[in-house]
């Protein structure tokens, strides 16, 4: 199981992946926006997304859970 967490305070601009989807290492899960920059959050492992903890428009803090990949 791998937890994907936010590296910084940001707004969730786009949720690209969905719960139940299988992803490969490097696939974009969500795109965050902070300080006028888009920051893709990518899967660091391949597997199935068992949890997607954010929705578009959410604000995430550093360390907040974004997704769980199993």
């Amino acid at each position, binding site marked *: 199981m791998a937890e994907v967490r936010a*590296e*910084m*305070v*940001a*707004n969730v601009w786009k949720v690209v992946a969905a719960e139940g989807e299988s992803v490969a290492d490097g696939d974009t899960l969500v795109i965050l*926006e*902070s*300080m*006028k*920059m888009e*920051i893709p959050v990518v899967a660091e492992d391949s597997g199935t997304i068992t949890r997607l903890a954010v929705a578009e428009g959410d*604000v995430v803090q550093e360390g907040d859970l974004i997704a769980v990949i199993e």
Partner: protein
Amino acid sequence: MFESVLVANRGEIARRVIASARRLGIRAIAVYSEADADLPYVAEADQAVLIGPAAPASSYLDRDAILAAARATAAQAIHPGYGFLAENPEFAASVLTAGFIWIGPSPESMAQMGDKINARNLMERAGVPVSAGTREPVADVQAALAAADQIGYPVMIKASAGGGGIGMTAAADSGQLTAGFETARTRAERFFGNPAILLERYVERARHVEVQILGLPDGRVLALGERDCSVQRRHQKVAEETPSPGVSPQLRARMLAAASQAGEAVSYLGAGTVECLVDVDAQDFMFLEMNTRLQVEHPVTELVTGIDLVEQQFLIAAGEPITFDPAHVTSNGHAIELRIYAEDSKRFLPSPGLIEEWVEPAGPGIRVDAGYRSGNRVTPYYDPLLAKLCVHGTDRTQALDRAAAAAAAFGISGPKTNLQFHAELLESAEFRSGDYDTSLVSRLRP
């Protein structure tokens, strides 16, 4: 001179404009969002008006809220700073219609230059060199591929309504162009509300050099020297210097003359910037775009010329004579600006947070234009610029040494900053040699 000015901006540039206003005895009015209530510029203004919540669309981009603040405080003039509404001709027009003085060029000049395709075409007709590129919006991938075949690869994909490097992508071949085109269109639509795309020849060994212009009410457009802005990450500037070490006196003379010509072609009034690409190998230049506002990096020009550009903006907007004799503008020594961003020094990722410590360097030739102080919170809503560390020296070597010492003495803790990157930049043989181009940062951070 008008007696009061509302500054429709935030952070370091609001503070910079407020400082000149107060020095000249003009009442300075700040506007701020809920996220910015504690920033220094709010406290330093004579008056400050809360205009909305943190999100820019509900505050610094809310035209009605800004005009309402100007009415409520009986402001006579509005200074837009840079970014936000500074290059929005509709906003400028509504400022004028509401009876305020707009500190900037006419909405007509802004509209002519705001659209990059239109600006390129206009400059070409005015005899200013432009790079090979499209003369009308590129409709779809097929049209892009056809245009790129004409222009020759590599090409740069750009948003016609864009700015600040956002949404620009280089494509080395048709595969990259196909992949990048739709992304560029989506971004252009999202960030600038206009999906029009242009393609331009991408010059690989290029410097990004711009000319400061100042349009006078009598129609003359002065060129006040150049700034080299080739140190960029993600097509955004990180450090600037003047004079440019990559521009010969002959090339400089041609660039300054072309910049005046460009300004005169659109009856430009006030401070503006003509951005060019310099082909290092050919010692030639091409028009890129005109920024119809005060530029972030204006301090380096101020340091070598001794001219307060904001003061000239005020005087020109008020219809009064400028403070210097255009026939006797001299450039003394060398100046460098380092943009201190709230981002890590390795990957340049944003790092908002609470500023626990903020100690600015001081000493001969050092100027700090800062938007924050200790105890402030850097929020994710705005750009990551914390401060501009500017240094002046009698020559480039002294300026480099002063910049390195000042960067080392700048104490910021809390958010990560790019101060470490600047230290490495100032030590790098390539930057110190002066013989660098826009790929310098990607070589330092492969």
